[in-house]
């Protein structure tokens, strides 16, 4: 595709339910990142994939959060037993290769609301 896509664009769920967020990176991009953006705040790093391995999971806030990636393609971020503080926009980005100098291309995000 032309850019990074994410689905769903909006998700409303009840506290305690599990949710799954999907990211389709730009074709050929080996690196994939997940971020969280709470209302009125900057982006908070969650996890980074190089290929289908995750060398940096340091940003995952708790063991309720997990992510996986299939090859150099789709990634899913799963939040189990959602809490109200999980409400945020979850952004996915991809870059051609990993490395701090490489431009990351961002998707439009998934807005998660936990009631």
């Amino acid at each position, binding site marked *: 595709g032309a850019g990074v896509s994410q689905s769903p664009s909006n998700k409303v769920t009840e506290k305690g339910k599990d949710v799954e967020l999907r990211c389709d990176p730009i074709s050929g991009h080996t690196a994939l990142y997940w971020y969280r953006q709470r209302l009125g705040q*900057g*982006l908070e790093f969650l996890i980074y994939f190089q290929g289908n391995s995750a*060398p940096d999971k340091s940003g995952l806030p708790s063991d309720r959060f997990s992510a996986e990636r299939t090859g150099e393609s789709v990634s899913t971020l799963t939040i189990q037993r959602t809490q109200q503080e999980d409400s945020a926009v979850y952004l996915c980005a991809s870059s051609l290769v990993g490395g701090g100098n490489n431009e*990351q291309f961002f998707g439009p995000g998934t807005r998660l609301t936990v009631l």
Partner: protein
Amino acid sequence: AQSVTQLDSHVSVSEGTPVLLRCNYSSSYSPSLFWYVQHPNKGLQLLLKYTSAATLVKGINGFEAEFKKSETSFHLTKPSAHMSDAAEYFCVVSVSGSSGSARQLTFGSGTQLTVLP
């Protein structure tokens, strides 16, 4: 550790006047620095980046930023604001790990730019 401080959460300018969005960073190593813009209901877009080449970096839409190591600053400027510049702007720092592994971007808290007619 690395961090970014955007000194103003909101900036308001009149159309046609200069824009200055301030950013200070903290990094143990030589950083790469970026400015991203986020328009309402749109994804983040890279405006410009500094990666240890020229200290004055030109980006898209007439924006530029100057890396000043002595001041640990990377302020974003534009000579003349346009209505379409109204958006949220994020200053971002990245430092490559010693093993060469990729490092995540560290975002500032953002500056909301309002352009008045």
